């Protein structure tokens, strides 16, 4: 048994080093002068704020539409359920650039639906809402699957007893199911937000403008080289990791 643990430990160490080393390499390669310079550039700050705002908006929209869907999937059996579950997980396997092309084909300005949305004042290509649309698409599986598992793990009688005590289905959902699944809802939102913050492939196709921080990193890498891209990456990474750590800590504390 000890031999097996030693071998497993060695294998685990290799993968952990592989995952950690790029972060260390990034820190080692950073030039403090360039970081200082980058933090004073207005374009970079605007891109960062845009990324944060769009990721938050997409997560809130996903929460509103994804939570009821997650509940239905967790609690009801119906024809076509397997198909719906596959559709939800599809974005996980679609290449990011393809997501951009798909969204452009569906909601681009030259499509019927895109034209209709435009007449309502909602332009998807190269707009804030284009960024949000891409974020929703790529992060939907993470939120819906996590929340669905949260609802599914609630003992069915916790809801059933509330019903027999006089609560209708809506009241039961709001007062029993949702609070009991709060931890999963929070985790799902966190994962969806983090996934949105990391997206770039789809944005390069559907919403290069206005520039999000990830698009700007790609642009600066191509224009000014690795030094500026690293500086910008470090700013984004520190904000993402700090937010992630704070939220995880809050989650643990509440748990």
């Amino acid at each position, binding site marked *: 048994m000890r031999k097996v643990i030693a071998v497993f430990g060695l294998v685990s160490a290799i993968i952990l080093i592989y995952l950690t080393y790029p972060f260390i390499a990034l820190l080692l390669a950073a030039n403090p002068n360039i970081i200082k310079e980058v933090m004073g550039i207005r374009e970079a700050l605007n891109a960062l704020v845009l990324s944060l705002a769009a990721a938050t908006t997409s997560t809130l929209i996903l929460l509103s539409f994804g939570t009821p869907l997650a509940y239905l999937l967790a609690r009801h059996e119906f024809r076509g359920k397997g198909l719906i579950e596959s559709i939800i997980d599809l974005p996980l396997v679609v290449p990011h650039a393809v997501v951009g092309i798909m969204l452009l084909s569906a909601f681009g300005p030259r499509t019927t639906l895109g034209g209709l949305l435009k007449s309502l004042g909602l332009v998807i290509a190269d707009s804030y809402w284009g960024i949000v649309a891409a974020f929703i698409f790529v992060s939907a599986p993470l939120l819906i699957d996590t929340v669905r598992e949260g609802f599914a793990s609630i003992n069915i009688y916790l809801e059933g007893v509330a019903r027999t005590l*006089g609560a209708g289905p809506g009241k039961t959902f709001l*007062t*029993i199911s949702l609070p009991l699944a709060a931890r999963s809802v929070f985790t799902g939102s966190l994962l969806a937000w983090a996934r949105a913050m990391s997206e770039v492939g789809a944005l390069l196709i559907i919403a290069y403008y206005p520039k999000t921080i990830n698009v700007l990193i790609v642009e600066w890498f191509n224009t000014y080289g690795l030094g500026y891209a690293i500086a910008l990456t470090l700013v984004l990474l520190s904000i993402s990791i700090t937010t992630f750590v704070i939220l995880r800590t809050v989650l643990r504390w509440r748990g």
Partner: protein
Amino acid sequence: MIKVTNLNVRVGPFKLKNISLMAGSGDYLVVLGPSGVGKTILLECLAGLRKVESGKIFVNDVDVTKEPPERRGLVFVPQNYALWPHMSVYGNIGYPLKLRGMGKEEIRLRVEEIAEKLGIADLLHRRPSALSGGEQQRVALARALVTKPKAILLDEPTAALHPSLRSSAWRLLKSLHKRLGFTAVHVTHDVAEASYLATKAAFMWEGKIVKEGALEEILSTKEASTYLGDTNYLRGVVKGTENEVMLVDIGGKVLRVADHNFNIGEEITLALRPEDIVLLKEQPHAVSAMNIMPAVITGIEARGALVLIKAKIGKSLRLKAYVTKASADHLGIKEKTKIYMMFKASALKPV
């Protein structure tokens, strides 16, 4: 009052078949049966948590078969009690009152009143996770009873408790039923629980109700014998003591029991093993056994090397006894034969 007529339910390959039951107002109906016969499914159907294929469920003569759970007035208490972990004990008990639009003060009074009755007044600000099994059971009962429902549906309410706590849980249920007078449908696999609590009973077997009526009647069925063996369960009332022997009235017949830890007037269930009964052709004299009574044989069944003799004593007492085939032949046992049954006071064990 709950009335079920010809209820059919399908759950995967399992079926509840043609269930008919009745619990009158104030009845404590116990549905007894082994695990896996559909007792919980039956309760879920009554509660409205499961759809039925056909049949009707009436509550106080109103057909509620198609009504959602919140409109039936039947409160379900599952085996795990299903206390909401995100609410305090107070929050759990006050929840149904809040649903009814009561004010904070009225809720406080009602919660405190029922908590007092159940002896949980000092637990109101605790979370369910900080309660013992017995305390959780009391909270679940308080939550179920606080709105004075038309009936409560109890699914094996003592199964999750440590065996040493079960008898006190039975006493609690019995005294609550006596004080509050609610109607209950209680399912259990435990014959001792059924015999202690039931004012009416039904035996369930393979998705069917095989018999409904008094406990003694349901225990005399072939299916109950298959499940419980042939042990006799006798319910009676303590009449007094005589030379440190307790006198128990069972359907008009007084039996002598070697136990005196019960109060006069207390209801008691006694178990009597069929191998502890001796059959005699004539009334014996000068024997140590204190219970000797004339009986009429009503049935004879083979039990491997033994023969099971069913006999009737007086109008309502029925007993089952084992004898060997040789003894049965020697006594010339046939149906309607008159015999004497004899057993010691120590053979009767309070359940």
